[in-house]
């Protein structure tokens, strides 16, 4: 018995080990995204820059420089203005400006543009270039001209010693940049081929807001290796042996993006400057500085001519397994080839990076005077690796699509598909992909990088080899094949993200010793202790200056630190100076009710969820707003629908800050391929379902019941909000239509919209309109391949289409009944919801967070002032004008809950929709009745304006 027990115990041990090992072998990224990168434009025609260069390998580099005067264009599709200095600006998006370029013989040139911003909040401009009216290669339509931003270098502090984020604006000084790849796949500027004779060069501007002052064609300078550089500067005068030049990284001269802001770093005792308790802005970068092309530039003074080495105190703890690369420019030039890719390895601690390595650092020869240093995100040799892997991924994806055209996405495992015969080139593609992937893997392994980073590629290789040996197992393994391919392409897309945080930069002479990256043990220890003790005394939730609670407004912001700081900044700049009311801003996550109960609550809460105001108002916790004089004017700033959720018992209890509503998204490239149009009515949509599903794709349909209900002329509640109107034909029809999407038409119940839209598996979907910012930021490869339009409508008797949609809630501003100075609180709300304040807030928060932070303001005019492209603004406003919002009642949560239950009952138990709705409607109305009794009997009567 003892032996059996022992054996079973060891068996347990072994099985656990086995499971753990199997886990480690399994696809490393399998849990994440299923994104396949379609590198180029259309899914079926691809002509990469690499192909372009190899096709034109015999074309020599152009000689000399060709300068094109910006105002010498021969054609323009929109109004173009020339100013006195011969720079040009254009007034419309999508303007083509054509120039003629004449060369004696075929030559290759890179195109350098000198440009500057025309407004203080321009962040970048998107361009395409056509040669002789054709896109020369894929990627020529995705140029991003970044407009540098500058910020105040004197950091102000609030009354408690914390640094405030400095103000920043676009730099209107001109900057010169070549047209280059913005995804990090090619490290040198693009070179365009011009044929002998006259060529047409078209600059297609997708956005406006910049001015071009020079267009120059020249060949990029040949770069030299460090050995040559060293030779060239050998034996020169060195007066700098004991000199050190210190540059504070958080005070750049300028930076390529507004979103690269200084950071508060309070984790290390050796960061300069530092304080264990106060929040100081002492580093820069981190995950805000990671996209290829982003750069930060510094200005520094060299005290004496001589040799200096470069040391960087930095932290690279976000990219595990691979180093982060930076390209450095001194005075606008890369000094030598090795400086194209300075690599910072991964470490959870701060490190001191020496350019060239500690043993044999690079010695830069700097003349006395002022110079600039620019550090730019680059991909180094990983650019080439990424390119090659993407080639293989592209081929494998095409192969996958061909296979599923024969087998479908769930192949019959008992059928012999004989893929080798039915898919032409199957084995060839597998072999060429395998060779390519193996080559890249070998390159990485040789460079010493193994582990989790290369596991994804190894897995795919293993699978390909299996397929080559046993092609009839392919149908069974199709699912894993697909997710392996996705994992690899995800890997590539993440490869070019290079986050790095830097604290300071030093140029040091030969005799100056290296600085240490970390503090001594005792200083670190003391620092941590002080930090902990300080957290008991220093309030990190209050933002900015703190005033006496009793004589200022206390505002709680239910959002992130960036939002709270921006609001505080706006208050200091605009509100307090104008109205002379002091405001305390605190950052909170929850606890509003508890705090109010304990009489510790705020006067105003910002960004409360849309369901809260009615719940709070019905219990007497909020101040009614329509009693204030300027209420009429203020409410005109929003669409009437926006105020609907905040009405209760004849009063209005909140002002809307944001508003969300659904729109239709579709992949224009896939639709073009299939020869279909986006649906304008639901009937159109039904016709599309067949076509789309026939190609093994699908449609994304979220909870669309309310929209269907309203389009059918129904509504949620009756006039006095005492019961629902779900027993009407309109409600039954809407509910049946909604459930049939899934039960009858097979649309998926759960889906990852972002990934499926990207891969094209879900080329049509309804989603909240802010989804477009996610696509913009995180799906660059399909940038020009999708469109937004109105949600399908219902055809009415008179032939018109009802395009109403029901909004998806938003956030609101409320005044708590414990507020002592209600007039002042109203003044604040009036100011914060005004056009200017909302537009400023939106612009500031986007400058801080990037496009993903775009603010879905509820203010009609402010929306027009945000940096959204004109085309999108128009379609969004068109849908916005047709938005209705659901009224909120204290039992609202119960309505949505039961609708969901009814929906699921129909889906899982195949019950009759009409009948199910009827049953759950009864539960809903019982609860509504109960709540109304409760409110009537126990809640105190509403206090109007005390």
């Amino acid at each position: 018995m003892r032996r059996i027990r022992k054996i079973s115990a060891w068996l347990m041990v072994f099985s656990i080990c086995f499971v753990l090992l199997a886990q480690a072998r399994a696809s490393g990224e399998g849990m994440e995204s299923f994104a396949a990168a379609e590198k180029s434009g259309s899914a079926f025609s691809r002509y990469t820059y690499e192909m372009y260069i190899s096709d034109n390998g015999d074309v020599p580099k152009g000689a000399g420089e060709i300068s094109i005067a910006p105002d010498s264009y021969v054609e323009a599709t929109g109004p173009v203005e020339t100013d006195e200095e011969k720079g040009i600006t254009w007034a419309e998006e999508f303007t083509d400006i054509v120039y003629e370029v004449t060369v004696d013989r075929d030559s290759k040139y890179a195109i350098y543009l000198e440009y500057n911003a025309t407004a203080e909040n321009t962040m970048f401009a998107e361009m395409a270039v056509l040669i002789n009216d054709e896109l020369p290669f894929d990627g020529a339509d995705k140029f991003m001209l970044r407009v540098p931003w500058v910020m105040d270098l004197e950091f102000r502090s609030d009354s408690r010693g914390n640094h405030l984020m400095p103000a920043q604006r676009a730099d209107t000084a001109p900057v010169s940049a070549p047209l280059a790849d913005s995804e990090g796949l090619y490290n040198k500027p693009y070179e365009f081929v011009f044929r002998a004779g006259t060529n047409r060069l078209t600059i297609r501007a997708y956005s406006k807001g910049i001015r071009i002052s020079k267009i120059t064609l020249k060949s990029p300078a040949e770069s030299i290796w460090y050995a040559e550089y060293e030779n060239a500067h050998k034996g020169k005068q060195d007066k700098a042996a004991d000199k050190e030049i210190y540059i504070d990284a958080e005070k750049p001269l300028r930076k390529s993006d507004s979103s690269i802001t200084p950071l508060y770093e309070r984790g290390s005792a050796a960061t300069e400057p530092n304080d264990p308790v106060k929040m100081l802005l002492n580093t820069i970068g981190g995950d805000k500085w990671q996209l290829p092309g982003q750069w930060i530039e510094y200005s520094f003074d060299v005290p004496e001519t001589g040799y200096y080495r470069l040391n960087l105190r930095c932290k690279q703890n976000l990219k595990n397994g691979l180093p982060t690369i930076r390209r450095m420019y001194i005075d606008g030039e890369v000094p030598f080839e090795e400086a194209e890719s300075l690599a910072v390895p991964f470490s959870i601690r701060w490190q001191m990076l020496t350019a060239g390595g500690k043993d044999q650092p690079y010695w830069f020869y700097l003349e006395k005077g002022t110079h600039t240093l620019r550090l730019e995100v680059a991909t180094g040799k990983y650019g080439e690796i990424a390119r090659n892997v993407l080639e293989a991924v592209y081929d494998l994806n095409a192969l996958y699509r061909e296979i599923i055209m024969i087998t479908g996405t769930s192949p019959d495992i008992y059928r012999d598909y004989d893929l080798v015969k039915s898919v032409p080139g199957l084995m060839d593609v597998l072999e060429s992909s395998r060779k390519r992937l193996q080559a890249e893997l070998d390159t990485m392994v040789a460079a010493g990088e193994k582990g989790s980073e290369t596991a994804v590629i190894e897995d795919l290789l293993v699978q390909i080899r299996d397929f080559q040996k046993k092609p009839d197992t392919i149908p069974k393994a199709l699912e894993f094949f697909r997710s392996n391919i996705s994992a690899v392409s995800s890997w590539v897309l993440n490869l070019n993200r290079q986050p790095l945080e830097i604290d300071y930069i030093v140029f040091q002479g030969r005799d100056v010793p290296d600085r240490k990256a970390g503090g001594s043990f005792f200083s670190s220890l003391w620092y941590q202790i002080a930090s902990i003790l300080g957290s008991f005394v220093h309030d990190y939730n209050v933002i900015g200056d703190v005033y006496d609670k009793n004589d200022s407004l206390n505002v709680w912001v239910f959002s992130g630190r960036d939002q709270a700081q921006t609001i505080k900044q706006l208050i200091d700049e605009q509100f307090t100076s104008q109205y002379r009311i002091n405001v305390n801003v605190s950052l909170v996550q929850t606890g509003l009710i508890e705090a109010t109960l304990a009489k510790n609550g705020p006067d105003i809460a910002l960004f409360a969820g849309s369901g809260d105001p009615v719940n709070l108002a019905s219990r007497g916790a909020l101040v009614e707003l329509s009693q204030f004089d300027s209420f009429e004017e203020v409410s005109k700033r929003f669409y009437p629908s926006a105020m609907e959720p905040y009405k209760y018992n004849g009063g209005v209890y909140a002002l809307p800050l944001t508003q969300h509503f659904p729109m239709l998204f579709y992949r224009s490239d896939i639709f073009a391929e299939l020869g279909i149009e986006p649906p304008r009515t639901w009937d159109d949509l039904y016709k599309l379902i067949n076509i789309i599903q026939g190609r093994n794709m699908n449609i994304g349909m979220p909870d669309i019941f309310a929209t269907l209900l309203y389009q059918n002329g129904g509504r949620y509640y009756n006039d006095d909000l005492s019961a629902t109107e779900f027993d009407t034909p309109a409600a039954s029809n809407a509910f049946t239509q909604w459930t049939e999407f899934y039960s009858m038409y097979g649309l998926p119940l759960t889906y990852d919209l972002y990934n499926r839209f990207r891969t094209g598996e879900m080329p049509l979907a309804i989603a909240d309109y802010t989804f477009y910012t996610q696509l913009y930021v995180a799906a660059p490869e399909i940038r020009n391949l999708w469109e937004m339009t109105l949600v399908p409508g219902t055809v009415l008797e008179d032939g018109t289409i009802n395009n109403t949609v029901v909004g998806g809630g938003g956030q609101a501003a409320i005044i708590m009944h414990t507020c002592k100075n209600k007039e002042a609180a109203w003044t604040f709300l009036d100011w914060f919801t005004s056009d200017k304040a909302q537009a400023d807030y939106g612009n500031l928060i986007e400058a801080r967070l990037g496009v993903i932070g775009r603010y879905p303001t509820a203010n009609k005019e402010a929306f027009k002032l945000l940096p959204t492209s004109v085309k999108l603004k128009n379609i969004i406003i068109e849908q916005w004008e047709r938005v209705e919002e659901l009224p909120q009642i204290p039992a609202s949560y119960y309505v949505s809950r039961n609708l969901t239950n009814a929906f699921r009952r129909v889906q899982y138990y195949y019950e009759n929709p009409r009948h199910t709705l009827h049953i759950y409607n009864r539960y809903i109305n019982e609860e509504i009745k109960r709540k109304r009794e409760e409110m009537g009997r126990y809640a105190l009567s509403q206090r109007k304006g005390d």
Partner: protein
Amino acid sequence: MHYRRGKGIETMHQAAYKYALSKGKRRDTRDAYLMLLPFLLLFSFFIVLPILSSIFLGFTYFDMIQMPQFLGVKNYVRMFLDDDVFLKALSNTVVFAVITGPIGYMSCFIFAWLINELPPRVRSVLTFIFYVPTISGSIYIMWTYIFSGDSYGLINGVLRNLGLINKPIQFLTDPKYVLSVIMLVQIWMSLGTAFLSFIAGLQNVDKQLYEAGAIDGIRNRWQELFYITLPSMGPQLQFGAVMQIGASFSVSQIAIALAGFPSTDNAATTIVTHIMDVGNLRYEMGYASAISVFLFAIMLFTNFLLRNILRAVTKDD
């Protein structure tokens, strides 16, 4: 234990009696109370006081914005007679407790017993591996990926590959499946503190008892288990029972993380999630307090029952 050598040899009892009355004892007692004081303060403040206030609030209507209003026993009447969801929650919780409690408890013991055989190093490693789900706090979230209703979710993907299903099964939103899924995850997480205490207890069983038993005619492992091991582990078994089975009444985190809050058709609603729903979402803190008092009573009762059973098993006086 001090006893004075005085007039002759006193019995232990007499000595003990004298000690109990002596200054030394009183001083020791006072020191003991002082050492308990911090814990007692915190305990009264954070546990006893909330329980008392819950009992009080259970008799009121309290929406957290205005002062509580006295209702008498109306909350309790409503709980049993007018609240379908509560009854569903009660049945779910009892099913949970009855299945995952004892199964979890027994699996704690079985695993501890099996591991006990192994050399100390291996035993520590394995203890760690089994205890990890409990330490890590929220790792059970990975089950949402395994059971995901997306056709690419792990189980759905495998089943589709095998050709067993066509449409993905919505494990976490379909009332048919969700309770079983949560019970599975709960059992997976059940190797908690009870497990650790069993391992310690098994180590501390006096080896001499085994030898004595072997001599006295114990023939196999089962007899050894019942006659020697279990009786010696009385305190640990009781502690484990309280922890394990008592805790299974308050399952809520896993249910919320996996099945959503609320779960479809209340299929996975437990008493605690119902309390959270009523108290936080519906602003009816008085009613929520009444339910929590009821839960408290159930747990006390179960605890009492378990101790008596275990007393019988371990023949502990």
